[in-house]
């Protein structure tokens, strides 16, 4: 609380992001955890709640005649422009937000202060929702060839790895230790996913410290053991996810990549995903383009192109598809690495597994996937998400990119995922919110040192409790295609700008009616109706009668619709209202109330030319 000097400012103007003249007046509140803005109108005042940790950038813009503008950019791509009447207030708010959005120590993160109405037992159980040992045994590990090693028991060999690691039985401890000394940050090759059907493994590690000529027999032995562990293939792939040039440059620093001559039976390949700095710059450009006022279609497309964002997405997806193909079709094992093996490697391993294994496409399975490949293997969430005040060069949207890749796959395969887009957005939001303990810190060891599991709540139990919100109504676990290895089509025209992520809070540019929402509510209603049918049938049988069967009238809606559509829909409305759970589901979102429609329309206009100005403009030109 010591950072809050002005907890409340009145008469704050909220500007429209796209530059229309429409703005609202409201009151700004600063709490320990949130920035809250409440409109001053008599009817349905809108409220905006922004978690401090979601704030990425706060900017004080040059003073204007109406007040002091404050621009806030969030990690979930919300952009807000306030105009605060007094400069002093603006300054206070600005300073407070700088401090609150970027604490200097972990203890100040929201997760340590977040206490939902839960018993201690429930909280503890929340942390037990996911057990990675169970996950490995689901894959069939340990088995005759793969076993658990305790070599990293107390994080002695690699402090960014978890303690439980799986390696081929044939490798001894000295081999592992030797290999880890030859790998950047000690991240030696270890199992990420085991594809039971073909006995092929996805393994991960960091780059070898090969320099220009160094070699390490233990490391070579290690790779050979992994290759041999797969009886179906006489070779294995080593996938370096970096562009070749970057990998070669690393050799000068004593790092680099595997020399095919030194390792027997490996096939080495670069896949060319750019580094975290390129990705950060790229997404930055996307945000700039999205925020441009009076954006034209051509500027949007050329901005999207020059940002390179979709090119990077395609690179990651291509790498994942390649991995899945090698494992799923060729039955070969693959070792994936990049430089440190916690960014690109994590993306590619987790996406590859998602393509291979239907379990990861369920709500629970997706959590397990994130827990395994991202959290336990030490993706540096604290650094990449900028949880604490620190080096901004370490911040990068690696996880955002992963989530977007998953979205692209769900778009192409709408029936094989148990969850919908809402789930992806929710997880993405919470990775940055620091409300739950799961993503705090950079690795498992740090989290243990912080005692996360005792001091904070787990996101996974929260998501499970709310899972009905994230369901994909089109998912059916009994479909054969659900169980197949899926192969996304990465031809450029399939990859689209993800509006729901990058314009999450700009409601005006989204479809006004949600097809998915409607279908979801209908399918939920169907479940209730099925229960109701059973209940009614039972009652009728109890009364000694046979339940009547309704003859399915195939042509019913057709004929009646043909002649009098309105009548039919009226009738159906009535029937719907008389049944349980029949909420008026087809609500027209936006555009239904004319006033709303106007609001919706105006910003879009003003992007081209503000309507009013335009009318005047037309007038002025008439006289010339």
């Amino acid at each position, binding site marked *: 609380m010591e950072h809050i000097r002005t907890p409340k400012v009145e008469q704050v103007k909220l500007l429209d992001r*796209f530059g229309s003249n429409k703005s609202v007046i409201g009151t700004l509140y600063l709490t320990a955890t949130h920035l809250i803005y409440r409109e001053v109108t008599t009817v349905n005042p809108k409220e905006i709640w922004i978690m401090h940790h979601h704030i990425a950038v706060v900017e004080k813009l040059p003073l204007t005649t109406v007040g002091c503008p404050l621009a806030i950019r969030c990690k979930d791509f919300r952009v807000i422009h306030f105009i605060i009447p007094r400069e002093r207030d603006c300054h206070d708010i600005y300073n407070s937000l700088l401090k609150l959005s970027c604490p200097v120590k972990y203890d100040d993160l929201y997760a340590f202060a977040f206490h939902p109405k839960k018993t201690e037992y429930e909280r503890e159980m929340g942390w037990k929702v996911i057990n990675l040992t169970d996950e490995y045994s689901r894959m069939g590990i340990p088995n005759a060839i793969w076993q658990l090693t305790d070599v990293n028991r107390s994080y002695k060999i690699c402090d960014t790895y978890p303690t439980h690691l799986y390696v081929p039985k044939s490798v001894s401890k000295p081999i592992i230790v030797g290999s880890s000394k030859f790998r950047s940050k000690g991240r030696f090759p270890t199992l990420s996913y085991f594809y039971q059907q073909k006995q092929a493994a996805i393994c991960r590690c960091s780059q070898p410290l090969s320099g220009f000529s160094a070699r390490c027999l233990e490391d070579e032995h290690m790779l050979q053991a992994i290759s041999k562990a797969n009886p179906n293939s006489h070779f294995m792939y080593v996938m370096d996810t970096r562009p070749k040039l970057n990998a070669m440059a690393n050799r000068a620093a004593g790092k680099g990549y595997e020399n095919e001559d030194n390792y027997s039976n490996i096939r080495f390949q670069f896949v060319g995903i750019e580094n975290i700095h390129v990705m950060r710059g790229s997404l930055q450009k996307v945000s700039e383009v999205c925020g441009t006022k009076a954006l034209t279609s051509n500027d949007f497309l050329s901005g999207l192109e020059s940002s390179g964002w979709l090119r990077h997405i395609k690179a990651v997806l291509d790498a994942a598809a390649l991995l899945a193909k090698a494992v799923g079709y060729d039955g070969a094992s693959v070792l994936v690495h990049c430089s440190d093996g916690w960014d690109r490697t994590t993306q590619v391993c987790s996406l590859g597994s998602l393509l291979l294994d239907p379990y990861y496409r369920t709500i629970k399975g997706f959590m397990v996937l994130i827990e395994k490949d991202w959290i336990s293997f030490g993706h540096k969430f604290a650094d990449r998400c900028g949880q604490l005040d620190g080096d901004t060069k370490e911040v990068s949207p690696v996880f955002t990119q992963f989530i977007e890749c998953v979205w692209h796959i769900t778009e192409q395969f709408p029936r094989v995922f148990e969850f919908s887009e809402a789930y992806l957005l929710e997880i993405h939001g919470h990775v940055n919110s620091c409300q739950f303990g799961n993503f705090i810190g950079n690795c498992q060891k740090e989290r243990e040192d912080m005692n996360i599991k005792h001091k904070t709540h787990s996101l996974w139990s929260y998501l499970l409790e709310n899972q009905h919100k994230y369901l994909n109504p089109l998912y059916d676990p009994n479909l054969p295609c659900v169980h197949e290895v899926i192969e996304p089509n990465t031809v450029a025209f399939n990859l689209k700008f993800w509006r729901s992520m990058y314009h999450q809070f700009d409601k005006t540019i989204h479809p006004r009616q949600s097809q998915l929402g409607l279908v979801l509510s209908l399918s939920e209603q169907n479940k209730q109706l099925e229960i109701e049918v059973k209940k009614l049938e039972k009652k009728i049988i109890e009364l000694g009668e046979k339940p009547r069967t309704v003859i399915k009238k195939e042509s019913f809606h057709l004929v009646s619709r043909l002649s009098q559509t309105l009548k039919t829909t009226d009738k159906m409305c009535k029937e719907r209202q008389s049944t349980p759970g029949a909420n008026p589901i087809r609500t027209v979102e936006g555009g239904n109330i004319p006033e709303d429609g106007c609001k919706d329309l105006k910003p879009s206009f003003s992007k081209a030319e503000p309507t009013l100005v335009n009318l005047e403009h037309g007038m002025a030109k008439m006289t010339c």
Partner: protein
Amino acid sequence: MEFAELIKTPRVDGAILHRPFLPRVEGTLCLTGHHLILSSRQDNSEELWLLHSNIDAIEKRFVGTLGTITIKCKDLRIIQLDIPGMEECLNIASSIEALSTLDSTTLMYPFFYRPMFEVLEDGWHSFLPEHEYTLLSAMTDEWRLSYVNKDFTVCPSYPPIVMVPKSIDDEILKKVATFRQGGRFPVLSYYHKKNGMVMMYSAQPLTGTNGRRCKEDERLINATLRPGKRGYIIDTRSITAAQQARAKGGGFEQEAHYPQWRRIHKSIERYHILQESLIKLVEASNDQSHNMDRWLSKLEASSWLSHIKEILTTACLAAQCVDREGASVLVHGSEGIDSTLQVTSLARIILDPQSRTINGFEALIEREWLQAGHPFQQRCAQSAYSNSKQKNEAPTFLLFLDCCWQIQHQFPCSFEFNEQFLIVLFEHAYASQFGTFLGNNENERRKLKLQQKTVSLWSWVNRPNELEKYFNPLYEANSLVIWPSVAPQSLQLWEGVFLRWNRSSKYLDEAWDEIIHIIEYNKDLQAKVNALRRQLAELQTDDGELESP
């Protein structure tokens, strides 16, 4: 028949057909006067029936004596035929070329097509102006039907019956017609029931360089204004283009002569610029080898989405003037047969819930496009693959359909019809067995005797079996104005048309089937619950009656 002269080789055995995402078919190729047919001559196997008029361009190439003809269709599909024998191949190619570019309209397939279905309702009489007027009269008595153009002498591109303000007699109309290009005087396009405001279209006024005026023209459009109210003139050209038009005798309404009207210029591209845009877009969509940057830059270079944005923005503006500003609107460009109709028809879709039903949309196409004199035959003569010199071709109508799709995409529950319906209209506008889109205006259609000699598209589409394919299961009548977003982030490539032949849509189709299933199942369950409730209620009252005495 002169077709026989054009067909040198009517039949080739052992031809192989390659189509995107379908297995190849080997069979016999036959050429008839109007079709290219490939049959594998096996039971229950698919045959290809391709209308010659659907062929936009062909290419031939030889490897030894095996010839390959690549056929590029107006619906954007590309198929390939392997034909053994060089002579046969050359013959087939030259025949297709000749048959797909017949000059005479009366030789086109609609004049030979006999329906294999029973015509329940003759589509030629489905949308009569008198009917529209009856509906209008129920709302207002300020308008009348005028037969001034009954023999097409006042305006060759207008229908014989138009709706005009009641206070304006036919003599005035005749004078106004001389002041508007092509005789296209302002007529009623849409009456907004909510506030009694109207939308009209016309061609540009012929003011010329010396600022000619026409008192009758002023009187005509002023007659649509409420006392003390202003109206808006939406000119679909830039101010510069409008000024340049004066040199050629055209022009725009001078403020001094139309003090009650505000003029807004909103530039919408037309003619060859649009055609080139289409060609570029299709070229980009057909190339699977593009990397991301190249695809995006080609998509941008086509400017297709910019044109969509321009058109939608102007339509929103027109709709806004009517609905928000409570003003009457006159829309025109130069000739008033392209961008003008895009704007008025899209504004109507935004404003009028009726036009979002299947029947209403058909009526809109009939009135705002066919009757209004959009020159379909000229505009749709060639599509994206033609390398012959462009004359009057332009994808004006396809752009309109794309805009409809964009709105539909943003309001998936507000349209009674689905995307498929829009695609079918696109296909039939370019090549069809029906006469609906033949000719360039009503005058030409009468001369061709289309009503007597051809079948209307509506006769076919409106049969229950066919109509079933076009219903949107999510539809719920929405009586409100729907404002689409025109932000570039909201506009998308119409994949159903432009990527249709370039990728498999299997998974997306399955998803759509499941949506339909969920909705149908919901209806069944509702019916079942209601029936059981009724039964239970009856049983309980029976019991009650028995117990009560």
